[in-house]
């Protein structure tokens, strides 16, 4: 009732501040990285990039590793492609140093116009995955040895289709003791059959995107409807009221080791469904060598905090209440001295599970019926 009676009206606020430096970087162990240096702007001044140029080009950034000066980097531009594969000109500050696990990285940026900003982050150690086991309910839903399956149900050529439901992936990890660890778990499938002469086709399934299809691959393997609620660690940041009011862990596969510190733990991942399809005249058994790929990303605390902030802002009760003034305003998380930007670090380990035995058994049983 309270909210039904409320309304919003425009208000003029002339409270402006001087911009500050904003520094963003994601540092991955054993990979080159670059730094995005921009500035903050007054909200009502307009849109970044299209109306306001927020890139800071006059700065230099000093890199310190384990308290030792390493290099100074300046603004550069280089050709790149965006997320959609379009050619773009990337801008930023490219670092030559290749960080290693355990490195304490300190970045100090200095701009004549916007002053100084600094941030420090330690590259976490990758934590190996002990083991992964998969399974679920599967049945041969279509088998047309004389035809190829089309999406409209018609067939031509040869085709085999396996339906999966309640597919589980149990990931066993051991959290290193005496250190605070933060993780993100990424899951995907790999049906590239690279070892068998295939191309690189794979699909991340944790984003529920089952639309990716390859016109040239003879095999596809999808898992869909990832159940984020199936693993309690993914919702450790939810309080009871958030659960009740409908906030959920959707999109959250990050967690801390607070509940599993120094212990072995099995993560439970669940998918509602999936499909494995061979669309080829060649019905070779090698096509069963599709894989589930599990990647455990060790995160710096700043990376974890940023993810948590994003969730709270978009889905958390605090974000909802602060939007309407019932709770303190939720401002952005930052580990940069100016309060703008996030410098984070990651290290990855991965584990691949070949589903050959699982799928072959289902298909063989189905074909023999």
């Amino acid at each position, binding site marked *: 009732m309270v909210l039904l009676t409320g309304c919003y009206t425009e208000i003029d606020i002339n409270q402006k501040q001087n911009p500050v430096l904003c520094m963003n970087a994601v540092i991955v162990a054993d990979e080159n990285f670059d730094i995005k240096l*921009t500035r903050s702007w007054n909200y009502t001044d307009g849109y970044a990039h299209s109306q306001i140029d927020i890139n800071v080009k006059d700065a230099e950034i000093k890199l310190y590793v384990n308290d030792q000066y390493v290099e100074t980097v300046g603004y550069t531009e280089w050709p790149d492609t965006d997320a959609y594969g379009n050619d773009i000109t990337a801008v930023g500050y490219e670092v030559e140093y290749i960080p290693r696990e355990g490195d304490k990285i300190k970045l100090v940026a200095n701009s004549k116009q916007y002053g100084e900003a600094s941030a420090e982050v330690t590259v976490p150690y990758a934590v190996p995955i002990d083991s992964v086991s998969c399974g679920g309910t599967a049945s041969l839903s279509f088998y047309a040895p004389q035809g190829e399956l089309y999406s409209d149900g018609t067939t031509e050529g040869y085709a085999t289709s396996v339906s999966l439901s309640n597919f589980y992936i149990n990931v066993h990890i051991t959290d290193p003791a005496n250190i605070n660890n933060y993780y993100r778990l990424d899951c995907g499938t790999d049906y590239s059959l690279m070892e068998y002469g295939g191309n690189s086709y794979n699909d991340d399934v944790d984003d529920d995107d089952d639309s990716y299809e390859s016109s040239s691959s003879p095999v596809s393997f999808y898992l869909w409807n990832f159940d984020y609620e199936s693993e309690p660690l993914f919702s450790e940041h939810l309080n009871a009221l958030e659960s009740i009011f409908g906030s959920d862990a959707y999109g959250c596969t990050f967690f801390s080791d607070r509940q599993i510190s120094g212990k072995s733990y099995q993560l439970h991942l669940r998918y509602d469904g999936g499909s494995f399809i061979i669309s080829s005249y060649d019905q070779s058994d090698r096509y069963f060598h599709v894989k589930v790929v599990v990647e455990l990303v060790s995160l710096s605390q700043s990376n974890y905090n940023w993810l948590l902030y994003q969730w709270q802002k978009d889905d958390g009760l605090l974000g909802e209440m602060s939007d309407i003034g019932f709770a303190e305003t939720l401002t952005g*998380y930052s580990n940069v001295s100016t309060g703008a930007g996030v410098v984070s670090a990651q290290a990855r380990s991965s584990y691949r599970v070949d589903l050959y035995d699982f799928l072959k058994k289902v298909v063989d049983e189905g074909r023999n019926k």
Partner: protein
Amino acid sequence: MKRLITILIITYFALLATLSAQNITINAVNRDAQEVFAEIMKQSNVNFIYESSVLKGVTVTISAKDQPLDSVLEKLFQSTPITYEIKGRNVLLKRQKSTAPSKKITVSGFVRDAVTKEALSGAVVRDMESGTATATNVYGFYSLNIPKGDSRLLFTYMGYNSQSEQLTGQTTDKTVNMLLAIGNELKEVVIVGSKNNALSVESTSIGSYNLSSETIKNTPAIFGESDIVKTLQFEPGVSAGIEGFAGMYVHGGNHDENLYMLDNIPLYQVNHFGGLFSAFNTDTMRNVDFYKTSFPAKYDGRLSSYVDVHTKDGSLESHHGSVKLGLTSGAFNINGPIKKGTTSYSLAVRRTWYELLTAPILALANSGLEDDDEKTHFQYAFTDINAKVSHHFSNRSQASVMLYYGNDILRGGSKTNNSNATYYSDDDTKMSWGNIVASVDWNYVFSPKIFGDFTAAYTRYKSSMSYMWYDAENLASTGTRTWTRDDVQSRNNIDDWIFRGDFDWRPTASHKVNFGAGYTHHTFLPSRTKREISSSQYATITTRDSANRYQANELNAYIGDDWHINSHWRAYYGLHLSLFGIDGMTHGGIAPRASVRYTPDNRFAFKAAFSRTYQYIHQLTQSYISLPTDQWVPITGDFKPQSSNKYALGAYWLIDNKYAIDVECYYKTMDNLIDYVDEYYLIPAQLRWDSRLTTGKGTAKGVDVKLSKEVGRFTGHLSYSLMWADRTYAERNKGKTYPARFDNRHKINLLLNWRCSDTWDINVGWTGQSGNMFTLSTQVWEYENPITGETDQVKLNSGINNYRLPFYHRLDLGFTKRTKHGYWNFNIYNAYRQKNAISVRQTYRKDRPIYQKLTLFPILPSLSYTWIF
């Protein structure tokens, strides 16, 4: 000159020696004093000088043989109320000043309503001969020390006919119980309030008010729900918080720093409906004591204010009651005698009636759905029940049993049941929060000078939330049934066992002492959450948080003395001692209280006061409204008790016994305050709850000015407050001091009640204040993940509470029409539809970044009818 002085001194001593040397012989038994004086005058050649009234009723007995004058005089007056002084040849006689205890008697008793026999709290009893006066306590008891002999006691209470009692030649203690009737001459004037105006000049306290249930009912309120907190929000120095809600931020304090007591028992959950209404049903209230500045020694445990609600006992003579139907709730109350003259009962029930609307609407909506469609259910209700049975064992002994139950429940969910029985889904959410209080109270008049009250009580505060989701499917292909169930349960409880004794002691006419002690055993369950996910497909996964249950023992003792030094000076001094043992640690608090008043005459008063208070229990809340997630938690770990020092000055002017002007200044320091750290949400809720907290300090200062009128057809007050309040925490706002959220610099309140005829009342409330402080991000920055290209526009932290919302003002109107059997009440909240801002958000209009203010309540009319029987 020196010589002259020497001669005079020698002459004086020579004369004295002469007088003393004149020995006297006299014998008298119970003879009139004047006859004896005549005899002495003959023998000693001295004069006796006195006023005729001095010897009134005085007889003397003496036996002296050849003794000096001074020895004879000493014997003569030793058992009389007369003192003497020899000056030359004259003996000056005076009545002894009425301070000697042996020359006093104590008059005590109860003052009650003549019809219902309910105790009248705050009635004034005055001895018209000596001018001594006192006020009845909450049980209607008074004790007054007056001189022996004749006196006339005058009993007065606002809205009642005064009564007097003549005592003639009274030489022993006496009990005088008085019944006061509602004044005929006052029936046509406003019978509200108490003697706050007179008290402001007479008492030593600063910033204290006594509110009657009529005053509360006469305050216009949102949805027409009269509310103690909404009435107090009109007092100077009290910030209301978020518009429409029953928040109370007194002199820069926090919402959890107010102690609400129901018949001496502290309550934790004091509101309903997310804070829109307070949990106190005004129909059950007799009166309310509110202290915001100087605190009597009895009160401790909170930093900012004390709200002591006293409930009605019920009539000892006849049955009365009322039924009210309002926009949001209905209420029923009844009281009367169980055994006439000795035992009474009082029962009041208040409940929302939304279900009467929501249940049929939802049933209708669900009935139109297909079998396979999702069917929803929803319920919200608040209930409070007050029940009390009182019994008078004798004129000296009374007891009562009181029960209070207050609860909010919110429930909702949906069900889907496939007609082919292939799919079933059910989700159900339930939240419940409130208090239960059960208490037994016995008070006893030990002697005319000592009144004792003993209380034993059990209270439970509970807040629970549960969520269940169940999903099942019958797989035709395999013939199996798969299901998943998710259960979340969370609760926060406090169980208190309370034992306390409070005493009023009148050792002398000039001292009124209150003392007492109490013990409370607390059991805290700050937060316990359990989540269980089970499925037909895999093993049950259970997670629990690590919250501990805490046992705490709290001991309190206090003493305070209200000392009438003389007709100009009056002082109150006291001490409250407390011990709080928890988690293997014991915290202690020594809280002195002092105030002093000076009155040049009975129209003006000037006061100064100091109060120190401690708080061992605090409420953690993530929002400015009341939610079931708000946790009451004790001091644990490295945290120290919150404490406050408050200094105050006051000046008071009573004009023609009709108007009063109060000017009060205060300065308050608060230490060991507890709040969430910045970005506390980054710390998972499953961790120890205190890992998200930080400690700090705060200051508040200001001036409250109030002009009030409490008698006549036209009553009300106009007040202005000038206030500052700030906070400093190590882990908030980068350690920098920032203004408190409800640091409303200027606040003006106008509350008017006009009884325009026998049947019509008009009530007007207007409030205007500087806007609340708000954390506004004027700058934004761009997050960019250089790997994924993901970008996000993010608010820059520019400091906590860095922006003041626009000036807030609102007019509320209330109209009451009395009928033969009851009254109609029509309220208009925000009568001129002011769009007050409660927050500001960033948004876009036609692709232009703009700020918008959120307005909560437009004009809100409400109507209720109360049938009285």
